[in-house]
């Protein structure tokens, strides 16, 4: 732990003192992230993906720093439009709108923005502490993982992501996930260099690159959705005091800590993301709050926990990125791709090959968090004007960036086509209630699944019992199957039966004997 603290201090010193230009990068990227996040139609994923192409030729530490700042800024920035427009700038801020917008309607927009900023700051701080603590632990533990464990981890990622991103209909989440796994098989397969599903096209034999697919699924799909909708109306009225009062925050310290822990944990679950983290934190806070009746009507606590939850998930999502090379969210997936592009190899070996990188990322998150807090409280009034930009003016600019951003990674016109196709696919998937996150997670996990499934089959000679031989495989497989079957009717009925039986026994025991 002391070594970790020393590496963290060295990284922070390097960013702040040895290379002061980094401070400009931090401020610029975080501010840009806030703007990207606050504009409906520009998501954090798209911002990070587009920024990846812009930072392509930079040094790895500068590039990753800019991407982390963009990520943190964008997740926070969405709270602005959630509060002022009742439209979350990113899906992560959907829970923020529930109490943020009513507060704005009551003439307390400034207070709401101050509370949201403070919640985001505190959530991010809790998240980065857990990032620093758990990443080395999980990374060292993951060194014991072999092919069977990685195979089950890939399947678990798809199942849990599908479960949580499509709570009403997890079947659709799983279909999206397995579709993503299939997309990853397009191109040259790893053992015999055979070109799968390329049909003689050279471009397809190179496979489907993650970033154009993500820019399409999250960017172009969002543009189509935004252009379809009616006009947006910004809440009018003066923005008064922004800086929050101490008692408004300290009163809810328990909720803040709980939301930070829950948000980080949910953020670490593969592919799930900040929106689930925010809703989970919100629901837990509402169920245990003494002011539950205020939730949905402008509750300070509701607003605070939503933002704490979503920002702590940012650091949480980076835990599996660094330790397992599995993203905890869509923007984290782009971050992971960017790390590989810049020659950093996250995964179980990171604590052996690049241990200082983990603490550099912690330092980056800290810098981004502080910048977000400072910029978030100081640049409110000028940035509100940005929200008034008409979508018809903004969306073509966004699409131009999507096109050039998709092209810039590999200088292939084919990638623009991939972006367009995934954009249209992503839009219709959303219309049909098929979540996109499992699709994207599937594309990332597809290579892991492909290699490890074949390796496992070769080692086991097709014997399925080998897949459950090690304790870790058995645990991951059991959790996967439990997650899968937990949504079936007979499991729900069994759960109710057991719960009722326990309740009856407790009631019988508590009744005094006649």
């Amino acid at each position, binding site marked *: 732990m002391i070594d970790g603290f020393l590496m963290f201090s060295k990284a922070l010193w390097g960013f702040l003192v040895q290379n002061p230009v980094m401070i400009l990068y931090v401020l610029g990227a975080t501010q840009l992230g806030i703007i990207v996040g606050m504009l409906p139609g520009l998501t954090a994923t798209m911002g990070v993906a587009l920024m990846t*192409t*812009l930072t*392509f*030729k930079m040094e790895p530490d500068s590039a990753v720093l800019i991407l982390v700042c963009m990520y943190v800024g964008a997740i926070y920035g969405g709270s602005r439009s959630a509060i002022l427009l009742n439209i979350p700038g990113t899906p992560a801020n959907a829970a923020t709108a529930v109490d943020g917008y009513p507060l704005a309607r009551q003439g307390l927009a400034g207070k709401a923005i101050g509370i949201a900023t403070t919640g985001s700051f505190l959530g991010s701080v809790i998240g980065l502490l857990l990032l620093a603590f758990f990443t080395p632990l999980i990374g060292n533990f993951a060194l014991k993982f072999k092919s069977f464990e990685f195979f089950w981890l890939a399947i678990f990622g798809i199942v849990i992501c599908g479960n949580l991103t499509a709570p009403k209909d997890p*079947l*659709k989440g*799983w*279909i999206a996930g*397995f*579709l993503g*796994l*299939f997309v990853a*098989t397009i191109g040259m*397969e790893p*053992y*015999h260099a*055979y070109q*799968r*599903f390329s049909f003689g096209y050279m471009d397809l034999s190179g496979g489907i690159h993650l970033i154009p697919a993500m820019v399409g699924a999250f960017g*172009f799909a969002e*543009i*189509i959705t935004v*252009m*379809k*909708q009616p*006009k947006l109306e910004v809440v009018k009225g003066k923005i008064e005091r922004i800086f929050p009062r101490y008692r408004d925050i300290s009163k809810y310290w328990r909720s803040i800590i709980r939301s930070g822990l829950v948000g980080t944990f949910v953020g670490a679950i593969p592919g799930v993301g900040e929106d689930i983290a925010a809703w989970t934190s919100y629901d837990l806070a509402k169920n245990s709050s003494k002011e539950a009746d205020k939730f949905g009507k402008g509750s300070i606590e509701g607003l605070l926990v939503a933002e704490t939850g979503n920002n702590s998930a940012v650091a949480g999502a980076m835990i599996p990125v660094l330790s397992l090379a599995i993203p905890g969210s869509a923007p984290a997936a782009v971050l992971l791709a960017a790390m590989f592009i810049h020659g950093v190899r996250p995964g179980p070996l990171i604590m052996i090959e690049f241990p200082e990188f983990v603490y550099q990322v912690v330092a980056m998150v800290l810098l981004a968090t502080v910048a977000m807090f400072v910029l978030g409280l100081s640049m409110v009034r000028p940035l509100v004007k940005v929200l008034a930009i*008409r979508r*018809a*003016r903004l*969306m*073509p*600019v966004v*699409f*131009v*960036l999507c*096109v*050039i951003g998709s*092209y*810039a990674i590999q*200088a292939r*016109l084919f990638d*623009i*086509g991939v*972006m*367009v196709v995934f*954009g*249209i696919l992503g*839009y219709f998937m959303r*219309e*049909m*209630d098929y979540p996109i996150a499992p699709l994207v997670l599937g594309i990332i996990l597809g290579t892991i*699944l*492909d290699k490890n*499934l*074949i390796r496992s*089959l*070769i080692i086991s*000679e*097709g014997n399925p019992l080998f897949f459950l031989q090690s304790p870790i495989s058995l645990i991951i497989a059991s959790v996967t199957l439990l997650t899968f079957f937990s949504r079936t009717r007979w499991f729900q009925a069994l759960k109710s039966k057991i719960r009722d039986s326990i309740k009856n026994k407790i009631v019988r025991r508590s009744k005094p004997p006649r």
Partner: protein
Amino acid sequence: MKQENMPKADFVVSILMMCFGVWIVVHSLQMPRFKEVGANPFSVPGIVPGILGIVIFILSLVVFMRSLTRKGYRFGLNRQTLKNFFHETSLQRMLLTIFICTIYGILMVGSMNYYLSTFFFVLVFLILFQFLDAENVNARGKLLILSVLQAVLVAGIVGAVFRYLFLVDLP
């Protein structure tokens, strides 16, 4: 999409997905086995996509069966419903967005000068959607001038930033 139409959408999409699953499996079975080079039978190229195809088929089948119980096969299509559907403003805006963006991304970029293609795309997008949204017919002249200006600026700035600042070759 309205929730009452979801069973119909599920019915159609699940059939497409089942067909897709079958297609994946058939195509995977047709992939070579490399027996002549002594390859391990579990390392053949078709094994992983084949398994994924089967899973996609099974999951889609469950969605299909569920859509049948919810009577998703009853489309209730007639002239009036189709007319109402195609007259919806949101549908028209959606189709227009997809059309313009696809033309730009697939046909224009790469086949003509980047600055020119971007200029025309932004100009057409602004004109079409702002004219659709225009409250005042007399303001269309002003809208046109501003649109041309924005199109020039976007094409110029984006192209220049990517080419000269980020050293990316333009398509």
